[in-house]
């Protein structure tokens, strides 16, 4: 039997169309008769719209409508805003009333025959406001916000107070904006009472559910098409107001309408990772055993949605500790609505917690890895459940060995390469594994090809490739002869690409649908004239290498599947499957783990800090697609470099306008910032999550990078950066530098 393709370096099946430009992203779809909607956004941070003067704009050439709260007609709220299939990112539909909750909120839409006409009209709409003083920083709110979430075991306060070794530090991560390359955008096309939306979304099914509810039309009349997504990072998990605007406007002007969110409004109307402020207190024995963790996290949210970043997610389980308290607070401000961004909660949470662990190591004069090993959690102490599979110790050890960690000398500035000072850091990565329910359909065609379809989507992570690999694994049909079809709500329902759960969720359904269609094929083989197996017992047959053959015999002894279909004179055989969560999920704690090792170079003469190399070892279950898997981890580490050293959305405290709302001023890592990177997968299948043992890998790579980098920075410079990003002025503030 041919070796399985699972875990091998299969080249992305959608790679060619992407690099040749043939892949159509949302607003690329050529739609006959399309007109353009250009949004107009508020220029105050808080207040009321007192007048909208459209008299000039309305008379401009090509203008079809100027829509706003006074004339747009109803858009509805969803019934259960946070439920699967009706999760709207911003629960308030656009133009609901005359209130402005944040700077850059949609207040009107100019619709015209051409983009230029719409843009020109938009700039001639005069909006008057009654401005109120916006709350733009958490310090603007005097009263203590209530605790929204609280976890406790043991008595962390007393244990902390009695601990001989204490760390008490507050860490801040700034607002980060997702900034996927492909901007948000929608083309809405009505055909009678039915609407089709060309979208860029991480969840076609959820998008369909939301649009059905907000437009007030039956769900079967809503069709979402999103074949390619130029990345989402969490920002495209659920619909944002522009999607509703496009649908509403198209209904109003009776033409297809395209609304593309400009980069500047990507900073206000489509989410961000909120700033976090986290106080971490660690109490420990003199030999570094944790006695208490008190983790208090706070983040701002919008006036519209209570979005909690959940920084304390990993706190109760990542290290072994008898006494843990973790709390979360929310502060409502006049800013756009936050939403999950890659590795939500755990990414800023682990930055704070692992930074504190490193500060403890420094205080105890212990190796930072040693402190982690001394507090290694053998089981999940938050749920008292065993881990389904945990090899974090091996991640640390393999990483340390490959990185050369034993050569690390602890003194600040003690390591050099020529004139450059080196700093080494390491950190723990963690992400919880989850598998939900999905359906899938697999088709075997008489032309010798297979097709697999599911209403999930590939947001650039490799889902097309993963589902093709699974079908190939089951049928033996080579990946090149398998067509993967995703990103369309009319296909069998599949999961949102979020929470790193899409792979673990989809592959059981694809595997089961493959087995079902094979079963149909074997039944067909025994009843078809001319088939060598005519009259045989189907249970004695099998399919491999794309052929039907006797169980136990070589595939070459059998017949190619397409031959049987031709003999039967059928175009294709098709089967579906529906699968649910992991059967034993409540008996285990399912998590992925990893370890990062990083090196920075510091040139104190010119205050220049650059990352020189990174090494990541991942225990993320079995890897299905080696290339796209590695790509996820390396890309996440790049994002971690951005988070640690560059990214920050800067709001003007006077009106909460994001000042650096463009790609030149909002800094992310460029190629020149990316050092030599390495990623090692331990590749232990998870015995609980499913047949393939695959846990998700989309987000875990980002957790633990920032603290590893601030640790390395401290090691090189002696400056402990507790408020990201690490900036030149923070490094220069230390007189010794």
């Amino acid at each position: 039997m041919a070796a399985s393709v699972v875990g091998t370096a299969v080249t992305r099946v959608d790679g060619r169309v992407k690099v040749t430009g043939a892949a159509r992203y949302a607003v690329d779809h050529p739609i006959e008769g399309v007109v353009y909607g250009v949004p107009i956004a508020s220029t105050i941070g808080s207040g009321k719209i007192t007048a909208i003067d459209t008299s000039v704009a309305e008379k401009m050439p090509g203008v079809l409508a100027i829509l706003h709260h006074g004339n747009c007609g109803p858009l509805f709220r969803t019934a259960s805003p946070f439920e699967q299939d009706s999760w709207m990112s911003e629960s308030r539909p656009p133009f609901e009333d005359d209130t402005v909750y944040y700077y850059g909120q949609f207040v009107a839409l100019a619709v015209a025959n051409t983009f230029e006409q719409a843009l020109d009209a938009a700039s001639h709409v005069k909006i008057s406001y009654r401005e109120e003083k916006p709350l733009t920083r958490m310090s603007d709110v005097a009263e203590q916000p209530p605790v929204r979430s609280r976890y406790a075991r043991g008595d962390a306060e007393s244990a902390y107070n009695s601990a001989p070794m204490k760390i008490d530090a507050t860490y801040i991560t700034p607002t980060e904006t997702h900034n996927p390359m492909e901007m948000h955008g929608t083309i809405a096309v009505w055909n009678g009472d039915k609407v089709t939306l060309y979208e860029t979304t991480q969840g076609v099914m959820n998008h369909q559910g939301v649009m059905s509810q907000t437009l007030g039309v039956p769900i079967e009349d809503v069709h979402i098409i999103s074949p390619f997504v130029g990345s989402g990072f969490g920002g495209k998990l659920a619909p944002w107001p522009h999607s509703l605007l496009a649908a509403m406007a198209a209904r109003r002007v009776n033409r297809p309408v395209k609304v593309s969110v400009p980069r500047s409004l990507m900073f206000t109307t489509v989410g961000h990772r909120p700033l976090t402020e986290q106080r971490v207190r660690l109490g420990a024995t003199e030999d570094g055993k944790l006695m208490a963790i008190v983790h208090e996290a706070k983040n701002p949210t919008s006036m519209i949605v209570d979005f909690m970043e959940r920084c304390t997610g990993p706190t109760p389980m990542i290290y072994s500790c008898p006494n843990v308290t973790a709390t979360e607070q929310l502060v409502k401000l006049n800013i756009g609505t936050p939403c999950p961004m890659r590795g939500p909660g755990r990414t800023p949470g682990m930055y704070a917690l692992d930074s504190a662990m490193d500060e403890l190591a420094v205080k105890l004069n212990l190796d930072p890895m040693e402190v982690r090993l001394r507090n290694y959690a053998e089981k999940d102490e938050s749920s008292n459940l065993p881990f389904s599979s945990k090899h974090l110790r091996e991640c640390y050890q393999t990483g340390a060995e490959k990185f050369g960690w034993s050569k690390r000398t602890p003194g600040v500035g003690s390591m050099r390469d020529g004139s450059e000072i080196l700093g080494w850091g390491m950190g723990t990565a963690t992400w919880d594994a989850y598998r939900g329910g999905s359906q899938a359909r697999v088709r075997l065609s008489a032309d010798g090809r297979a097709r697999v379809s599911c209403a999930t989507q590939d947001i650039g992570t490799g889902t097309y490739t993963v589902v093709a690999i699974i079908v190939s694994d089951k049928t033996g049909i080579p990946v090149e002869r398998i067509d993967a079809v995703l990103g369309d709500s009319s296909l069998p329902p599949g999961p949102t690409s979020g929470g790193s759960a899409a792979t673990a969720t989809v592959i059981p359904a694809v595997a089961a649908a493959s087995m079902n269609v094979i079963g149909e094929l074997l039944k067909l083989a025994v009843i078809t004239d001319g088939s060598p197996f005519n009259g045989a017992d189907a249970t004695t047959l099998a399919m491999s290498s794309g052929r039907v053959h006797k169980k136990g015999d070589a595939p070459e002894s059998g017949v190619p599947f397409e031959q049987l279909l031709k003999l039967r004179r059928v175009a294709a055989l098709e089967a579906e499957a529906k699968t649910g969560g992991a059967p034993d999920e409540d008996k285990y704690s399912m998590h992925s783990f990893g370890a990062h090792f990083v090196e920075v170079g510091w040139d104190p003469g010119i205050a220049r800090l650059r990352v020189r190399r990174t090494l990541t070892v991942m225990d993320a279950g079995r890897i299905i697609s080696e290339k796209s898997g590695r790509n996820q981890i390396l890309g996440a580490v790049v994002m971690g470099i951005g988070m640690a050293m560059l990214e920050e959305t800067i709001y003007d405290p006077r009106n909460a306008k994001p000042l650096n709302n463009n790609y030149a001023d909002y800094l992310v890592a460029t190629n020149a910032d990316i050092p030599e990177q390495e990623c090692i997968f331990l590749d232990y299948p998870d015995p609980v999550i499913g047949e393939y043992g695959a846990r998700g890998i989309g987000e875990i790579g980002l957790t633990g990078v920032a603290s590893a980098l601030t640790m390395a920075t401290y090691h090189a410079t002696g400056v402990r950066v507790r408020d990201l990003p690490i900036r030149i002025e923070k490094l220069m503030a230390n007189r010794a530098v």
Partner: protein
Amino acid sequence: MQPFGFTQAKTVDGAVAQSGRFVAGGTTLIDLMKLDVETPRQVVDINLLPLDRVEAAPDGGLKIGALVRNSDLANHPDVKARYTVLSEALLSGASPQLRNMATTGGNLLQRTRCYYFRDTNYACNKRQPGSGCPAIDGFNRVHAVLGGSENCVATHPSDMAVAMMALETLVHMQGTKGERQIALDDFYLAPGSTPDKENVLEPGELITYVTLPALAAGTKSYYLKLRDRAQYEFALASAAVVVQVDGGRVKRVRIAMGGVGTKPWRSKEAEAVLEGKAANEQNFRAAAEAALRDAKPLRYNGFKIELAKRAVVRALMVATQNA
């Protein structure tokens, strides 16, 4: 963006005769037109003008046409060999795609990246004289510590112009009243009470070319740009140095800085401190101190003062090491 008329000029005289706004690479002008910061009624495309050559000048220097692209200038053999600082400055700016479009004339005339200048919802004395300056009390990390006034503290963002300042470049212009030339240092104006007036160019006047003087044998030069990320970011502080060392002493030196001034900032004070002195770190530091003596920090940009000093010291170190 506002509707505008568009014409193409084929000759310099023809361009000057049209009263319109010139567009060369468009990487500044079109960007700002999209933001409604620039609202020309008439745009004149000058890309067909025969100003795209780099030629040897009679005095041994270099004559650079206003339409020479930044990439081509950076990679020109004479520039790489003799005016290293200019090649380095160009290559440190923007991105390869932008440099392929950007021109010599356009680069000199690029506008500030001040957040408030780029957003018409804010007051700005540069955009609307007398309306006020939100940067002075705002987030001014990227703003100037040298040359600012109570009306404007915006930095001139060019890297190329900093190198040209250290190279004592001449700017050649042509307008309806004829041709003229001026030293680059005098081309730019301090903001004072008229921050909207950034240079001496008259409306409709065209930059035709710039000339670089010949450099004495043995002259070394270097450009060092310091910023948060490794590429594709404007300077927080930069230094261009052109230096001639003789027997361990600095015979002649030109020092200019970027990212810290309201214009590309040449420091004659620093040059005076250093000339005739031994080429060593201590003297470089003294020159750097002189260069920033008049610096005035704002709330968020105080670190630039020390950073610029370090840029000057390191640039001199590197340049003289090769001497």
